[in-house]
């Protein structure tokens, strides 16, 4: 294996690593040991404590520093003579354009989100540089090879889409703990501590006032003479008591469901306890905003414990109070962050109180944090194995050893005695809109949907473009860039607010739009088909993109997202050919068995294949819908 030929291919190679996290640390080490001499590495992240259990190039003293830079310094300690160039930057920065990618012999991904993976895939296609892609979750992992024209690109196969929930499940009829978390995080937390001007569904279901007349008093606004204790209790009683009572008044909803129980603060916290709540903060809370915790003053120590309804209620009131007393300046600008202790405490307690109301089992702060922060399960061993496999594929790519390219799955339970299972790569998918330039079809209500909706829900969310340019024939409808003059910017801003059919060059049924991303040097055509109505539950976007393999719905739990969903893949999976010296077995066992065994392997791999492992750190759980007028209208009907 380590032949002279191989060594020279490795020594002369210039490689780009994207990501210096769990896989990245292992990969950089293995590349250096394997003789690679010229490695560029991009990572926008800084080091956190929870990285240290697997990202072994980092130490406690490095917390807060650039991953790419610290990783470089650590590897130079045992391989000082090699060249490692770190970039503490986002791979989506315009600096990393097609020309930048063209200087490399191979690109190696150790990323944690779908968005960046798609972006790198397109740049590699445009620059015609081979890509070795990887992912891990717990004990599972995979490595795939993508070479333009030879194998499928990263986007040829469906990927699990971020999980979204119908608005009414979140606002009115939660049945799982995750629904309560989404409610607490995306609705309640944002309402109280985030941008108040943003539309928020927190009250739409429970209060008819919102749709009928001018907004009266905003219940979430703290009254002038109101002390923080009173305010907290009022919010508590409003969201867990009053709103539930309102919801209960709609009998239709509860015909086939368990009726929730309204919870008022006085029922769960005696005045005596409330008094204690009020007196403890002075002794415990520090002035350093980031380390404020409500758990500590309440004596709730173990994040693995499942706290009672009363404990959660006290935590809720305490956390809310601490936000207003210790972090008042941030209120109005906060968004949920899994590393913000107080935010996690608030969301955990709010989700648990809501869960109690709806008869859903309560969860520990540790579990709630995992769900709210979409925290990916990760261990060092899987990352080490995957990094080794990446280097093996990278060396084959450098030697242009096409027939030996493999996708490899790292399994938790052996399949056909295999813990590491190699599979031959697929050919490019002929209908892939990314690498085969097949036009897409968009069904949309051209008289109701605005260009803005199209840009957000299709161009950015579905097509993953960052610097889009939209054309109808030769007419420019929209573009993003730094070098636009003011007139154009104003013109495009006006276009965004127009419905498609009323654009300067109207977009109606039968129109074809061309959408390009200048940075990705990627372009695709979309045929428009007008459609009047969309199903609120099934088509929450109010538009439907087809003509390419639809993403699979992600499972509700991160750890299930790789073992769920039906296959939409039509591509047959070809198991790896047995080696030549297996022939003796072929003769002795007969052809029939051989074939059946192969097809079983194919079945196995198909199951794995459909479940791309994506260790997305972000946006796996999000609330969908509710931000477009057309959608609201549909919902009200």
């Amino acid at each position: 294996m380590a032949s002279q030929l191989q060594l020279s291919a490795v020594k002369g190679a210039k490689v780009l690593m994207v990501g210096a996290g769990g896989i990245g640390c292992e990969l950089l080490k293995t590349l250096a040991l394997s003789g690679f001499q010229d490695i560029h590495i991009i990572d926008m992240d800084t080091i956190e404590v929870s990285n240290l259990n697997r990202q072994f190039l980092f130490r406690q003293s490095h917390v807060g520093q650039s991953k790419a830079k610290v990783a470089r310094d650590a590897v130079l300690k045992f391989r000082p003579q090699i060249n490692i160039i770190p970039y503490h930057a986002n791979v989506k920065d315009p600096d990393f354009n097609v020309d930048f990618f063209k200087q490399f012999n191979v690109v190696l991904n150790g990323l944690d989100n779908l968005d960046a993976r798609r972006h790198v895939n397109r740049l590699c296609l445009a620059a015609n540089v081979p890509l070795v892609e990887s992912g891990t979750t717990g004990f599972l992992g995979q490595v795939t090879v993508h070479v333009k024209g030879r194998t499928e690109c990263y986007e040829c196969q469906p990927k699990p889409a971020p999980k979204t929930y119908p608005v009414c499940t979140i606002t009115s009829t939660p049945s799982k703990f995750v629904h309560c978390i989404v409610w607490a995080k995306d609705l309640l937390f944002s309402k109280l501590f985030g941008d108040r001007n943003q539309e928020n569904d927190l009250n739409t279901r429970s209060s008819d006032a919102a749709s009928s007349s001018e907004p009266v008093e905003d219940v979430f606004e703290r009254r002038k003479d109101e002390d923080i204790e009173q305010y907290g209790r009022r919010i508590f009683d409003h969201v867990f008591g009053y709103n539930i009572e309102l919801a209960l008044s709609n009998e239709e909803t509860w015909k086939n469901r368990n009726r929730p129980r309204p919870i008022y603060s006085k029922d769960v916290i005696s005045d005596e306890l409330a008094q204690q709540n009020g007196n403890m903060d002075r002794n415990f809370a520090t002035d350093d905003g980031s380390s404020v915790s409500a758990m500590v003053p309440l004596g709730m120590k173990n994040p693995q414990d499942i706290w009672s309804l009363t404990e959660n209620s006290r935590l809720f009131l305490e956390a809310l109070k601490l936000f207003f007393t210790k972090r008042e300046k941030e209120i109005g600008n906060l968004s949920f962050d899994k590393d913000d202790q107080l935010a996690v405490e608030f969301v955990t307690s709010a989700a648990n109180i809501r869960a109690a109301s709806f008869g859903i089992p309560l969860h520990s702060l540790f579990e709630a944090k995992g769900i709210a922060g979409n925290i990916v399960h990760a261990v060092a061993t899987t990352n080490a194995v995957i990094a080794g496999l990446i280097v093996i594929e990278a060396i084959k790519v450098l030697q242009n050893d096409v027939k030996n390219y493999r996708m490899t799955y790292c399994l938790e339970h052996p399949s056909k005695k295999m813990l590491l299972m190699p599979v031959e790569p697929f050919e490019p998918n002929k209908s892939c809109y990314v690498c085969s330039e097949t036009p897409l079809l968009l069904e949309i209500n051209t008289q109701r949907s605005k260009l803005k909706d199209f840009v957000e829900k299709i161009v950015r969310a579905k097509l993953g473009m960052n610097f889009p340019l939209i054309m109808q024939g030769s007419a420019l409808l929209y573009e993003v860039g730094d070098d636009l003059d003011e007139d154009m910017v104003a013109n495009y801003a006006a276009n965004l607010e127009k419905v498609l059919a009323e654009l300067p060059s109207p977009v109606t049924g039968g129109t074809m739009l061309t959408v390009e991303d200048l940075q990705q040097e990627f372009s695709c055509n979309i045929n428009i088909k007008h459609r009047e109505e969309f199903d609120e539950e099934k088509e929450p976007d109010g538009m439907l993109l087809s003509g390419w393999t639809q993403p699979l719905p992600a499972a509700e739990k991160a750890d299930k997202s790789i073992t769920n969903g039906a296959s939409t893949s039509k591509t047959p999976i070809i198991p790896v050919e047995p080696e030549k010296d297996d022939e003796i077995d072929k003769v002795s066992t007969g052809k029939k068995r051989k074939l059946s065994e192969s097809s079983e392997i194919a079945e196995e791999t198909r199951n794995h294949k459909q479940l791309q492992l994506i260790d997305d750190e972000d946006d796996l759980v999000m609330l969908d819908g509710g931000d477009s007028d057309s959608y609201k209208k549909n919902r009200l009907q």
Partner: protein
Amino acid sequence: MVKSWRQHLLPETGLKLIVSAADQQPNSRCLLSRNKISMISKFSSLRLGMDGEELTEQETALYDRQIRVWGADAQRRLSKARILVYGMKGTVAEFCKNIVLAGVGSLTLVDDRVATEEALSSNFLIPSDEKVYVGKTLAELCCDSLKDFNPMVRVSVEKGNLSSFGVEFFEKFDAVVVSCVSLAAKKLINDKCRKLSKRIAFYTVDCRDSCGEIFVDLQDYRYSKKKLEETVEYRLYYPTFEEAISVPWRLLPRKVSKLYFAMRVIEKFEETEGRNPGEVSIADLPGVLKLKQDLCTVHSLNESHVPDTLLERLVAASTREFPPVCAIVGGILGQEVIKAISGKGEPFKNFFFYDAMDGKGIIEDVSDSNNGR
């Protein structure tokens, strides 16, 4: 720790194992009667709750992502485990990194050899600065680096020849991992681990060229697995290294990995010729091929099961390791030791092979099915 946990599981409940027909199954797994399982698991978790101290805040923060994989109980058991390793080359360096990061209680390194150019080549634990490494043993150099990876793990060095250590030395450990040792040493150390009343998990690991082999002896091992709604207890009987390699080749599963045979041929060759592990070169190929022929004849095995090309690769590699393979095999080994210590997950029985040429990582059960092992 593993041992004491195991003892809680059965004797004190007064339940007897019901050995089912599973004995005849290839993996000789025995199932406990299912209606008694819930009792057992309740009891054991109670016990764990009682004697397992809570993880500290620092531990919870550091191990957050992996606790999400294997749970807080497993993390507590890991933090009490004591591991011994011998043979500080690339694969063992990878393994050590993995279990130190995972947060075992302690790790003891034995390897008195001094650092050479070759030792540096696949071992990232040794700094390249000559001033640092001259005059220190491999174990000492690796110890210094490993301590840095996780301040919560006690990493230390034991000097001396592992084969000459008495049985009582091994009693201090829960798992023993040896690499780059002779056939005789593997048998000897395995036997010492077996002589003790407590159960010690014994592993050997070796990488040559782009191939790797792991052997494991967990003796009599029980673990539980969730099947649908209920937790099922399984039991695995492991043979020793000597017992495993004594199984006549023709009795092995039909498609057993060719690497298994090739590794045995080279191991035997080194023993007969009085060589140190890996001390072979391409000049030895004719001798190795001759030995292969003899062994195949003795075992009535068709020679095509041990391809000459494979032997040639292994012989030519000598003591050289291929770093990506070290990472892969060291990773799989780390995972297995974590499983065995934490009692979480299904350990493999009893060999693992990886060859970068075909990309397969295969588990082989090499044991004599006739004597219940």
